[in-house]
């Protein structure tokens, strides 16, 4: 009974307000400008507008890629079509795919990026734990060396490494990636070591000591206590390592696919490397196919999209972990 009364009265209020609209100046101001507790509508508007604008700029190249890759040659030439192609056309993908030997190269890419990633994940954990858990002489020096090796441009060591690998006969095989990774010198391994370092520092020492009192050795404590609690760090490292190995083209070309050494033809290649040499590869493949097809930017865009598609998919599936991992690994310090 009382409820309906209240309702009616509210309704009555509204009706009267409609009939004789009056504005409470303060209320309006509060709505637009916000108060100390709540952001105003205007501010919200500005924030969203900014975010959407910047977000669009971020997405622009990808949207561009998607739209362009669908276009036919006529659409490209037609100046009236700038974004939406006249028809959905997957022909470009087909051509780009055949020229890159997509499926074969995809598996190879996964192998090339995945194997060092696995090693990185394990080895960097061990090293990071060593730095975080133990105090030993020269630790500061080693840390400085670690950071220095991160700063140093890889061009300095690239050629001697190449010569060294060549002398040992490991260029053109996966070993050229696996061996350095095995010794904690993989791609951006310094960063991963630091991530693990930060993470393991947060694992309470008391926990490890308790385990040791219960009879676990150093290694057992590491495996049974530290590793299970480091799941976010492991995830971060493996994700980033995979993505960075995937995206690396120069070193892959130099060490693994061995394109510089023209006398030997290696079968191992990755999508990104294929993309890098897309234009020359394309004409080769298309020519041998018998039918000469013109290479155009739509096809190039399709190839680009194809080469990043797997990582994009991984990212969309695991994006929560990607984004939160930075948070949880404690790079930002506690």
């Amino acid at each position, binding site marked *: 009974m009382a409820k309906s009364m209240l309702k009616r009265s509210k309704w009555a209020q509204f009706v009267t307000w409609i009939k004789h609209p009056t504005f409470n100046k303060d209320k309006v101001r509060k709505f637009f400008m916000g108060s100390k507790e709540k952001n105003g509508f205007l501010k919200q508007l500005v924030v969203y507008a900014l975010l959407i604008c910047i977000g669009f700029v971020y997405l622009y190249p990808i949207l561009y890629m998607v739209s362009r890759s669908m276009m036919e040659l006529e659409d490209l030439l037609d100046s009236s079509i700038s974004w939406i192609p006249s028809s959905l056309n997957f022909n470009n993908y087909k051509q780009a795919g055949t020229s890159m030997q997509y499926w074969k190269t995809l598996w190879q890419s996964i192998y090339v990026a995945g194997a060092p990633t696995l090693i990185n994940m394990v080895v960097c954990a061990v090293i990071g734990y060593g730095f975080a858990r133990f105090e030993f002489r020269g630790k500061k020096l080693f840390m400085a060396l670690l950071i220095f090796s991160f700063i140093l441009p890889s061009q300095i060591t690239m050629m001697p490494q190449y010569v060294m690998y060549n002398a040992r006969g490991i260029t053109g095989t996966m070993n050229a990636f696996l061996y350095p990774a095995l010794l904690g010198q993989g791609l951006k391994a310094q960063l991963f070591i630091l991530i693990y370092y930060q993470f393991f520092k947060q694992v309470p020492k008391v926990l490890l000591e308790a385990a040791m009192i219960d009879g676990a050795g150093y290694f057992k404590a590491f495996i049974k206590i530290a590793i299970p609690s480091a799941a976010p760090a492991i995830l971060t490292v493996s994700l980033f390592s995979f993505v960075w190995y995937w995206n690396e083209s120069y070193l892959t070309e130099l060490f693994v696919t061995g394109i510089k050494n023209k006398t030997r033809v290696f079968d191992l290649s990755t999508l990104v490397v294929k993309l890098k040499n897309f234009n020359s590869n394309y004409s080769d493949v298309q020519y041998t196919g018998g039918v000469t097809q013109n290479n155009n930017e739509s096809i190039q865009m399709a190839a680009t999209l194809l080469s990043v598609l797997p990582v994009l998919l991984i990212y969309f599936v695991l994006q929560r972990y990607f984004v939160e991992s930075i948070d949880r690994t404690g790079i930002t*310090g506690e």
Partner: protein
Amino acid sequence: MKKIKNSGNKVVAHLMFILNLLAGMCLLLPWFGANFFGDIRLYSVLNSITLSIPLFGGLALQTKLGVTLMYVSVILLVFNTLRYLYVTKRRLTIVTYMAGAIVNIVIFVFTMLFAPMVKGLGGKMYTLWSFLFVGCSAFVLVCAVLLIIMKAFVTENITAKGNQKKEAFVFGLVSSIINLVLIVIMSRPMFYKNSLFAYVKWYKEAVPETSSTILSFLPLAITILAGATVHMFLSKGYNEDCAKANIFTAILNLVCVLLLGKTITQANTDEVKLVGEGEMTGLTTGMTLMLIIAMLQILVYAIAHLRDSKLEVKLVSPRIKFLAVIALMAILVNIFPWIRVTPDKTGYIGFGVLIASLVLMAVYALLVIIKKYKGKFVKVGYLCFLASLTTALYPNLIDLINNNTEYVGKVGNKFVLYLVVALAIEGLLLCFECSDNTLKEQYVGYVFILPWLAGVIIFLLSPMMTSFKYSLSSIAIKPKGMEITPVGYANYTQVWAEDANFPTTLMSYFVDTVISVPVIVVFALIISMLLNGKIKFKGFFRLVFFLPVIVVSGPVMGMLTAQGAATVPSMNVTAITGILEQYLPTFAVETVANLFNNMIMILWYSGMQILIFLSALQKIDATLYEAAKIDGGSGWECFWKITLPTIKPMILLNAVYTAIFLSNNEQNEIIVYIQNMMFQAGKGYGYASAMAWMYALVETLMVGAIALLLMKKRDAYDKKMAKKLKKMKREQRELKKVRRRNKFNGKKYAKAF
């Protein structure tokens, strides 16, 4: 000194010893092989017996150095046996040691007598060499005598601790002596102008029926020698220590086998055929057997350990042992350069190192004898290690200077690997055994970071050295390999003075980075501030802003830039440039225009930074803002007074990260330039690495400057604290000094009265 507690240990010790003995026997295999196959280098058993009677008297006349060394190792084996039998009587070890020294002196006096019979320059060298050998043997003798005297005088005072020190002393001494001998051998080119191989050639001509197995046997002999020494001085009875000493030998054997393998492969590829067929077979068999034995030994040891894992083992002093291992390894390192050919100039340096080593040894001996600095053994040991390491490395350095690239790094790299492996094994063992907890932690820490350390040496430091060397030379890539000719600093001068592109590219890189870093950081900060509020679809926005980190890579970016997708379409860059030109000087306009041109690139590079800022912002305590608001602070004030100071470290982190990322990016112009130069026919890699070094210098300076600029400044309180702490430390040191002096004076007076 621990008595036997567990019979298992005894068994282990016996087993180990027998295995060692077997390993020693394997030494003789090549010799048997030579006999069996009946090479030109045939020796009858009778001959060898007759030779052994005057021991080494006939050395200079007809036998070979290899055989001599073989004898040495056999004798050492005998010593080892003796020691095994009378292991508790410590004096005996010293006596046997002395006897060895005396025998050595006798041998080499003989050698000196007969040496003049060998004609020419080689003879002279030989004389000098044996002279030096006699010198160091005499030194050993003197030291042994000194030791006995010391022991006689201080018998009552010898506690467990005293023993340790003496052990350290003796061990250091022995290692230095072995080092010394090696140095002497290495500095041989000073006396004899040609290389080792030439020497061997000459030797074969002069003494036709000899077979020079020096190369294969010396390392072995020295290893056994070192192993036996450790054996002697570290073990006391059938306890754990004994087994441990055995494991040292086992590891040494293992390393030795590796060395041998290398020697064999090296020796016979050269024009001089050093190892005969029969010997080769024997050598290979012996090697394989030794490998198996060493493995067995390690296995036995490991099993014994697993079985007795609860046994309370107290080491004499784990640190001293660790040191001992390091010194041993240093000796092994010394062997390596000896194997390879050294150029002429090495001799002089060798002489310098020799003298340095001598001085070090003298200082060491003096320190110990005076007994003033009781606690410094370890440090002196480290010095010894350092000296050995320098002796080991100097031929490589010399080759580096002389650009004799044939041998640089080849030996060193591989050996470092062996060294690391051996150290790893030893470190692991120490981890299991060490009873001192803090020390144990140290060892375990080293073991954990060991792979990284090895990686740094192999994949970072040694390539860096090589690259530096390359930058000082011009390199032509020939089908046979690289041809390196030294050009001094020409590459560097060329980079700056003659190259038209490099300085400008470097300059533009510098300006670009200096402008881009603040832009990216500020931009990332703004976005993260926006995202930090109460926003719907926060997850979606984060997803979008982080996307570039996943996609960004050289070829993809290249493709996009080529298509013009890197510019915001609705932004009219030319108009902006036009406006800017009115207000800014031209060089600034260019960079700013560039900034706008690559707007998307710059935005794309800030994905990681946004996330880092975001997580830092979320960790700021919300109550701080509430308190500020109650006090009447506006949002603007809150940002400057609360947000910014709290995330300042993150700003530093992001700035540095951005700078490094921009510098090492594949899209970076200068990187592309260097990479293009690398494979250019005209200038080649030497030139490119000179550029890379200059670039690294600039980059490091820049990153350093950024870090310095944003680093947390010390406030007045911190400064005061530091000052106070320093003062306290100084006072304490003074106090310690005064106390020590008082103690010393007190003793003096007590003696006087």
